[in-house]
């Protein structure tokens, strides 16, 4: 089977389109919630903050499949949380988005926190004198000055989301034609011995990440 042929198969285009959608949505959430968490975790110190910090980090250190299983237990039909949620997460698009989101989150939050705790504090003083609230200072002064770090972190988060398999497999179900992302298709291809297909899909992911890479390089150089 040759390159182009595999590329334009519906079995490739489907996952490609799904991955794009997931990445766009999860990416927006990363940026938004990652930044809000950055604010929350750098303003003051409390026990609660430490706990949130720890839980944000967990998906990084747990094997994906274990995280996926824990989430399945929590969010499934009969799960502690899932029971109270009106819509379905498992086996659905939202499950895939959630998996991508959770796996990437620590990678944007942690570098952001490190940057916010750095030298930008002096600028915050000036802004405080000019009568700005913590919230204004965060958005108008601190964030623009750690833009490079955010871009670096965002790239890591998006990259992780793109390559994520274990959690997506558990939450999304890897259902062909519905929740099989590009990465899961690679996983499936390897699983069933279609190594050429795996390699072609991998190069597709490579191109994808090169795109994000250059886009963020531009963005942070503005």
């Amino acid at each position, binding site marked *: 089977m040759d390159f182009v042929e595999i590329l334009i198969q519906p079995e490739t285009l489907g996952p490609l389109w799904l991955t794009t959608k997931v990445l766009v949505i999860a990416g927006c959430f990363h940026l938004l919630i990652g930044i809000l968490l950055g604010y929350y975790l750098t303003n003051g110190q409390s026990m609660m903050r430490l706990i949130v910090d720890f839980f944000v980090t967990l998906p990084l250190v747990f094997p994906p499949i274990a995280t996926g299983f824990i989430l399945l237990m929590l969010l499934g039909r009969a799960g502690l949380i899932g029971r109270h949620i009106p819509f379905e997460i498992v086996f659905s698009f939202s499950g895939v988005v959630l998996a991508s989101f959770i796996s990437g989150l620590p990678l944007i939050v942690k570098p952001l926190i490190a940057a916010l705790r750095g030298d930008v504090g002096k*600028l915050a*003083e000036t802004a405080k*004198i*000019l*009568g700005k609230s913590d919230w204004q200072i965060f958005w*108008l002064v601190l964030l623009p000055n750690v833009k490079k770090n955010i871009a670096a972190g965002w790239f890591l988060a998006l990259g992780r989301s793109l390559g994520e398999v274990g959690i997506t497999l558990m939450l999304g179900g890897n259902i062909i034609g519905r929740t099989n992302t590009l990465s899961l298709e690679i996983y499936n291809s390897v699983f069933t011995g279609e190594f050429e297909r795996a390699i072609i899909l991998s190069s597709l992911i490579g191109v994808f990440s090169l795109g994000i890479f250059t886009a963020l390089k531009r963005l942070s150089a503005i």
Partner: protein
Amino acid sequence: MSLYIDITKRLKHFTLSTSFSCHPGQLTAIVGPSGAGKTSLIRLIAGLEAPDTGTLFFNNTPWVEMHKGYSMPTNKRKIGLVFQEYTLFPHMDIRQNINFGASNTIHIDELMHTFGIYHLRRERPHSISGGERQRAAFCQALASQPDLLLLDEPFSALDVKTRSFLCGLLADLKTSLNIPIIHVTHDLREANLLGDAIMALENGQIAPDWLSRQYHLHNNLLYPNTSAYL
């Protein structure tokens, strides 16, 4: 709109302990040797640090009452401050910097003209000179139309001409703004010309005699006996 200060704070090598007041339309010049506690005092008034004990009242509103553990946050105090080390925001151009804390009744362009930095309005802080940055920081503080103006050596990076021009401007501002101004300076002549009161700090204490001790030095800039050390 008067400021009443009575505070102490333990610093590394001595205790800062002052008590004075400052009235609208008046400029209190603070002088004193390097490391005397001048900047620390300004930071305490601005609320960037809290004193150990004491009170601070502005316009009959308590800003600090340490016996009640109260300290009003900096952003509520409506002050203008020009730092010794000017900290403009690197991600904004000069105009945006000045605009950032500005009340909307002020004319930014006029202000920039007055300070001779209008032609630099589109530059970022890192691409203008030290003195230009100092003037921009001054504009920034004024544009916020503060109730209290704190100046920590705002003219140190300026040449004589600009400096004397801005001194004149400051004298005008005293009456036109009609707010208390606290002005830290190393230039005793400046302090004399502008100050309605001059307060000398030495080792954190008000030192009434420090000033007279300085005058002979100031009037003829001499070389003290220094032995070559190399």
